[in-house]
């Protein structure tokens, strides 16, 4: 028999108006926008965050309410419930009073639209970029658009349209800068500044698929009480960025009884220097990592790793903690954190414990996390010495690794005083190459040692063949990565 579903009554701003909607647990923002609000300019291309056709801008007060900003998200991966108290701008909200937005005009003028299906998503990605960076570099434009697939144009015209807007802003032509963010946004931001309307709940009958209940606790106490009430670990899934959970729900037909959204837990989104460590809150997104000055100064390896992960839209949602907890053997962040010898802070109702990342993984998609436990923080020793990150994937940008690896080393003169190399895509979990590390310890990196280390690394892993590459290929990559890592030491 169909189960009961707990629906939510949410309120948010959609373009220039305040709206309310009943949303289903596990329902995506994309579905809500298209089916309930009839805003079909936002397209469904893949339903798993890989094509960017559903990109929308979501405005929110960040930095604890200090900064209002718009970020691009693939709306298929955003739980609709998460829109509560936020501002969504869709492609329909950019042209104000019949006048095309400068980015829209540029797309028209540069013939940057062919079939038109990817166009709204591309424009929304650029809108978010320009709203934060009025005159972006060509590099930033490419970064903003790397998550938007277009099969028609070959991107040349799209690139040129983006660059032309940047040029016009620079030249201050036609008050372009003043027309990037629609005028109504100011008012929306103000109205959302003190927004504290609660989510309303109701129960309806299920008509088949879908999740049963969505929860967004606002304190750890509430969270733990909720998990206690749910009981069985198999009955809930923690949602942070949602970039894995929503794929499971949208594409893999996963049906969760309880989705527990932890993004409204206060005080978990931070990066701060903490003595010799950098402490990173569990809700810190990959985009936060890239934007953060403390990370840039103290953890260049982590920054370089995050830069190679996913697309701009997914980095805006995905969190570092989520990338660890999902326990994929090719979750790139694990390689950096293993090499950096990071420690995880895990919490339950009973209190906190800490555990080194290298003890975190137990098997394929299995971790040390106990029932009702979650990662609350990651503590990373500030980097000293040499480092290198290598990621190999079929497509150089925005692809999941075939093999990724990270190295951190400290030299004493020319001798290796300390070295850690972590590798993913070669075993059921991310691994430290301990044999290779031992081989290199106390030696000078030169001559045949490099080749010996490469062979040792290949010998201590056991990759499998799958759609991302054969085991032979992965073996070759491990060797190449190690050689490349060590080249930074000689």
């Amino acid at each position: 028999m169909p189960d009961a579903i707990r629906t939510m009554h949410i309120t948010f701003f959609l373009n220039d108006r305040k709206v309310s909607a009943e949303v289903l647990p596990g329902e995506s923002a994309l579905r809500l926008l298209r089916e309930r609000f009839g805003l079909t300019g936002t397209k469904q291309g893949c339903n798993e965050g890989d094509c960017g056709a559903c990109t929308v801008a979501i405005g929110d007060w960040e930095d604890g309410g200090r900064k209002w900003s718009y970020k691009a998200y693939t709306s298929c991966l955003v739980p609709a419930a998460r829109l509560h108290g936020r501002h969504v701008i869709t492609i329909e909200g950019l042209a104000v009073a019949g006048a095309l937005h400068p980015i829209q005009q540029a797309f028209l003028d540069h013939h940057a639209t062919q079939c038109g299906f990817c166009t709204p998503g591309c424009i929304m990605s650029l809108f978010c970029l320009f709203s934060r960076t009025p005159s972006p570099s060509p590099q930033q434009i490419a970064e903003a658009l790397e998550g938007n697939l277009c099969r028609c144009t070959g991107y040349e015209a799209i690139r040129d349209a983006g660059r032309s807007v940047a040029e016009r802003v620079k030249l201050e032509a036609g008050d372009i800068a003043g027309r990037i963010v629609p005028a109504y946004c100011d008012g929306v931001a103000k109205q959302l500044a003190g927004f504290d309307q609660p989510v309303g709940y109701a129960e309806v009958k299920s008509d088949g698929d879908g999740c049963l209940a969505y929860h967004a606790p606002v304190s750890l106490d509430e969270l733990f009480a909720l998990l206690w009430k749910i009981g069985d670990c198999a009955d809930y899934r923690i949602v942070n960025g949602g970039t894995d959970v929503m794929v499971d729900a949208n594409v893999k037909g996963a049906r969760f009884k309880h989705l527990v959204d932890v993004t409204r837990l206060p005080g978990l989104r931070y990066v701060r220097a903490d003595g010799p460590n950098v402490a990173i809150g569990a809700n810190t997104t990959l985009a936060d990592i890239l934007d953060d000055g403390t990370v840039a100064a103290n953890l260049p390896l982590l920054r370089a790793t995050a830069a190679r992960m996913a697309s701009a839209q997914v980095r805006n949602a995905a969190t570092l903690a989520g990338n660890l907890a999902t326990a994929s053997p090719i979750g790139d962040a694990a390689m950096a954190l293993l090499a950096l010898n990071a420690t995880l802070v895990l919490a339950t109702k009973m209190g906190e414990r800490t555990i080194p990342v290298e003890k975190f993984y137990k098997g394929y998609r299995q971790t040390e996390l106990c029932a009702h436990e979650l990662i609350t923080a990651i503590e990373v020793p500030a980097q000293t010495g040499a480092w290198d990150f290598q990621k190999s994937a079929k497509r150089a940008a925005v692809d999941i690794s075939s093999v990724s690896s990270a190295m951190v080393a400290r030299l004493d003169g020319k001798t290796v005083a300390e070295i850690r190399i972590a590798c993913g895509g070669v075993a059921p979990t991310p691994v430290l190459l301990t044999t290779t590390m031992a081989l290199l310890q106390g030696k000078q990196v030169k001559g045949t040692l490099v080749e010996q280390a490469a062979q040792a690394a290949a010998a201590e892993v056991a990759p499998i063949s799958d759609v991302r590459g054969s085991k032979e290929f992965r073996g070759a990559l491990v060797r190449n990565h190690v050689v490349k890592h060590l080249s930074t030491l000689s």
Partner: protein
Amino acid sequence: MRHSSEIQDPGTAGTSPHHLSGELHVTGQSRFVVDEPRPAGMLFVKVLASPHAHARIVSIDVEKAAKSPGVAAVLTHRDIPGENQIGHVVQDEPLLPAEVVTYAGQPVALVAAASEQAAAAAVRLIEVGYRELEPVLTVEAALKNNLLYAPERRIERGDVDGALAQAAHLLEGTVASGGQEHFYLETQACRAVPGEDREIILYSATQSTAEVQEVAARVLGLESKDITVDVRRLGGAFGGKERAATLWACLAALACHATRKPVELRLERIEDMAWTGKRHPFESRYQAGFDRDGRITAYAVELNANGGAYTDLSMAILERAMLHADNAYFIPNVRIVAHACRTNLPPNTAFRGFGAPQGIFVIERVMERIARVLGKDPLEIRALNAYRHDQLTPYGQLVEEACHPELFDQLRRASQYEKLRGDVAAFNKEHDRLKRGLGVVPVKFGISFTTAFLNQGSALLWVYNDGTASLSHGGVEMGQEVNTKVAQVAATELGIALERIRVESANTKRVGNASPTAASTGSDLNGQAALDAARQVKARLLPVAAALLKARHSIKANEHHLVFAHNEVYDEKHPAQKLAFTEVVREAYVSQVPLGAHGFYRTAEVHFDRGQGVGHPFHYFVFGCALVLMEVDLVSGNGRAVAAHIVHETARSLNPAIDRGQIAGAFVQGLGWATFEQVVHDAKGRYLAVTPSTYKIPTIRDLPETLAIEMVERPRKHASVFGSKGIGEPPLIYGEAAWFAIKDAIESLCGHKQDSQLQFPATPEAVLLAVEELKK
């Protein structure tokens, strides 16, 4: 009468007005099939597909599914009222198989329910019993078992064996090229809406309105008059909706017919990628003889296409591969044999280039090897062998207006080729981890459907008495901007602003029997038809305008001197006295002059004798060449496009901005095919890379920073509407240059002495494998 296309008003032929739907696209207002407002009571269709590539259906039990909440109908082959047959050219494909499934992903049953979720839940309750059979998956296995769609095809000229025996140098080898997923951003979709009196309207995402109409009627036991197919636009197609859309349209039609409710069928991305056919993988063998200068004297090639589970368009694709086996080169003695193999993969289908890229790749491989053997520059060898004016193709068509020697010269100048070669060599000397290489590929692409009768187009034009016009034509808009181009043609001929013309959806009621929008002929055939319609209306307006000029301005206007331009009509001898176009139209209307016209065009001179392998299959050829500079990272195996130079002959482009966009888009699509787009299946014939997280198409990061496109806009004797040429497919082939560039980069490791065994596509894995082999 003065040729009005010479008047360069904005929007006329030869200018680059905005995309006709551009404002709608950039504001999100343009509607694709599933964006249209949902009719009340619409049902959603979900499909149960076979998990096996080859299996006997033992039982189908739909009882539980039928009782599932919200379900309106569960349908199998038993519920097909008409013929269970959706084949078109060859009728060998059931809509829903009764006895045997022949590919993984083949629809077996479907559910129509009140919501997508309810339909999906019910699909899981359908119980099908299968007895697995051995699948045939490869060309090799199919050839061994003689599983061919048709007897061997052959084109032959000269004494091939004799010339091979006498050649100064002889090469032989095998060449494989891979499949390619279309990855149109809009997945397969169709909405079917019941009309009155058995009528069904199909809003189908198809390139072939007439085919969908005909096949849906057959399946439902109806007639073509009972089915209307309407297509406003597609979110990309690239051939993937030419034949493949028919299946999904017919399933939607079946559900609509059974329930008499509006229904929507839309494939999820993962379904679309797992279940639908792709570009044909080819496995080919060749022998080539050449002289001491590098001139090819004989070429024997066997082209073998993996056709998948049904004939589909495989024979036509194979034929185009054969007709492009020579690419841009004159080969005196040549034998091309070809086989389309029946396998248990989803039926492989049309994909931009339609076999030509696969046929061309083999001869390009040969050119590259000739250069290596003689230690000569690959560009020089290609230029040496290129067609000269009035040489004959292997199938006996004259290559008139051949221009490759000049295009190669232009490419050399544009890319500063000699300097670039030096720069690349210097770069490779300085770098260990990174290696660079150059690849050059020319294109000679024949324009026309090789099935000659398809070369026809129709248009329906109505000029309203306010001076605006409605234009319908047989072409389907899918991003190639056929609508913009066809409207430009009509606007030019009528001398009115582009904004005055509304191009309607492609609809079988307004334009029946339309050929598929394919083979790079969309603008040619439909543009010519629209021109014909506009000329008819204009011819009727001439006496009206002349009479008006006389009455109004006392000008004794000569009908032959009347000019239609800028929304006005005037005698070129009396340019000061003008009539508004609207005035003339109103006068015509009240004078009971018809203002509508059906335009028609057929490409008269094309024919091809398949049995003999001779004829004149193409209206004209499109010529061009490209050079790509790739950089290979020897640690990861990734290639990166650094620069591309393209010289492409467009004749008199109808819209240079559109043509440039087609060149850039096709090139990047070809680059993806040649480098990291890889279609893989498991030993049971199930596709493995079925989401964009595993199948990678190019992103903006894959666009080379330098993409220099030179369009050669010279007038041509052999071209189409207003002197223009088709553009859609030929530039895809330039992407192959990326493969050759990667190979060149790898071979820098051995001083270009060896021929590396780089596989196609040049994935990082293929690159590292080739590097390791080379080091041995």
